[in-house]
C-alpha cells in the first residue's frame, strides 16, 4: 500500500502542475497543489515541478516568499524533496538562462544551454539514462530506461551528486540526489510506466 504522506506540489506559476498532480493521483498518493505557507509546513514531502525560464522561476519563488520557507523545510527539517525539470535546475547554484541568475544552491552546479549550432534545441523526446550512482527513486527501474525530456538548458555539476547521465551532444546530468534532495531533468509524470514507478518510489520513501 502506498504511504499516506502529504505531498505538496509547489505552485509558483511555472507550468505543468496539473500533469504532476494527475500522475500522483493515478498512483494513489495524497497530493496537494499549493503555495500557502501553512500547507507547505504541514506537508511531509515537497515537489517543485516547472517548465519555463530559470530567472522567472526564481523571481516567482521570491515573490511568493517561498525561498526561505523551502530552505527551512528542506535543509533544516529535512523534508524529502523532488525537483522536476526546471525544479531540478533551480536547486543548483546558478543558471545562464537569459542572464546569470542565482539558484537555491542546494546542489552545486549550473545550468547551461545546449549548443544550438549543432543540435536541435530544445532537447525534446524520449532519451535513455545511464546510472552513475543509482539512487532509491530508481528502484525496480533498469539502467538505460527511456524517459521524456523537454528542455533547452542542461545541468552541469560536480559528479558528487549525480545519479545518472544522458547523452544529447554532451553527457549531461539527468538526475541528482543529495540526502533528502532528489532531482530529475526528465518528466516522470509524462514517462508512462517507469515514470509512475519513480513517483511511487518517492511517495513511499520514509522520512
Amino acid at each position, binding site marked *: 500500500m502506498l504511504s499516506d504522506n502529504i505531498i505538496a506540489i509547489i505552485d509558483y506559476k511555472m*507550468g*505543468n502542475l*496539473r*500533469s504532476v498532480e*494527475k*500522475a500522483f*493521483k*493515478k498512483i494513489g498518493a495524497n497530493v496537494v497543489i499549493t503555495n500557502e505557507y501553512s500547507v507547505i509546513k504541514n506537508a511531509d514531502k515537497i515537489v517543485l515541478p516547472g*517548465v*519555463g*525560464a530559470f530567472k522567472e522561476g526564481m523571481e516567482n519563488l521570491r515573490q511568493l516568499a517561498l525561498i526561505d520557507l523551502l530552505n527551512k523545510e528542506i535543509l533544516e527539517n529535512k523534508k524529502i524533496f523532488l525537483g522536476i525539470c526546471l525544479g531540478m535546475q533551480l536547486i543548483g547554484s546558478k543558471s545562464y538562462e537569459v542572464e546569470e541568475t542565482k539558484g537555491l544552491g542546494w546542489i552545486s552546479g549550473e545550468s547551461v544551454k545546449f549548443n*544550438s549550432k549543432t543540435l*536541435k*534545441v*530544445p*532537447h*525534446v*523526446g*524520449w*532519451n*535513455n539514462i545511464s546510472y552513475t550512482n543509482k539512487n532509491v527513486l530508481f528502484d525496480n527501474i533498469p539502467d538505460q530506461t*527511456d524517459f*521524456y525530456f*523537454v*528542455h*533547452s538548458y542542461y545541468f552541469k555539476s560536480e559528479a558528487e551528486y549525480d545519479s545518472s547521465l544522458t*547523452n*544529447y551532444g554532451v553527457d549531461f546530468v539527468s538526475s541528482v540526489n543529495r540526502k533528502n534532495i532528489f532531482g530529475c531533468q526528465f*518528466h516522470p*509524470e*509524462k*514517462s*508512462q*510506466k*517507469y*515514470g*509512475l514507478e519513480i513517483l511511487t518510489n518517492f511517495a513511499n520513501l520514509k522520512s
Partner: protein
Amino acid sequence: MLKHRLIPCVLLKDWQLVKSIQFDSYRTIGHPTTTVRVYNARNVDELIVLDIDASLKNEEINTEIISDMADECFMPLTIGGGIDSIDHIYQVLEAGADKISINSKAIENQTFINEAAKIFGSQCIVCSIDAKKIDNQYRVYNKKLGVLDIDPLTLAREYESKGAGEILLTSVDNEGTQKGYNLELLHLFKDKLQIPIIINGGMGKPGHGVDAIKNGADALAAAYIFHFSQYTPAQIKEELYKFNISVRMAFNN
C-alpha cells in the same frame, strides 16, 4: 540517444475521436478516454489531439474532455484547435495539456507565437502547418482560408524565429491515403530548421516511417495505422529499429 517519436494525431469531433481523410471526410476512432488509455498502455510516445469543433465551428475548446483525457495520459499531450488567445492557452494547460498546437492564429498574427513562447516557453508551442501542392509548388493550406500564397518552409522558419518549439507538418494531399508520407515536401525541410519536425499524413505501413525519418523527419505522427491496420505501435517500432532508427522500445506492461 534521443529517440524518434511515434505519435498518434487524432481529431476531436462531437465528443468522439476521429481521423480525417484529406481534410474532408471522417472516420470514427472511439471514445476519447478509452482511446487514450489504450494508447498509454501501448506505449506510444506522445499524443496530439486537435479539436476540430473548436477550430471550425468557433466553439470553445472542450476543456472537460481534455481534462478527462489528461487523467489517463502519462505521456506528453498536445492540444490544438482554434487556440487564439493567451487565456485559451492557460485554460488548455490547466486542463492538463503539456503543449498546445497553433495553426490559424499563427498565420494571422505571428507575434502571437512570440507572446505565447515568452509566457509558456518554446517547448510548449507547436506550430502546425498544412501544405498542399498547387501548380507544382507547395503552398500553405488552411481549412477556413483555403490555399494561401505562402511557402510552407518560409512560414516554418518565421515560426521558428518567433519561438516555436516544434513544427507539425501535414501534407493535405497525403493525409488519410495510407500511401506514405510526402517525402518531396519533407525533403524541402530537411536540415533547414533548428527545431524538430513532426511529419503527418499518409502512414500506412512501418516502412513509410523509415522513409520519412531518412528524409529528415524527427518524429512521426499518424492515425490510420493505429486503428485500421494490423500493426501495433510495438510492431511499427520494431520495424523502424530494424532499419537502425532509434526508437523507444515498448515494454511489457
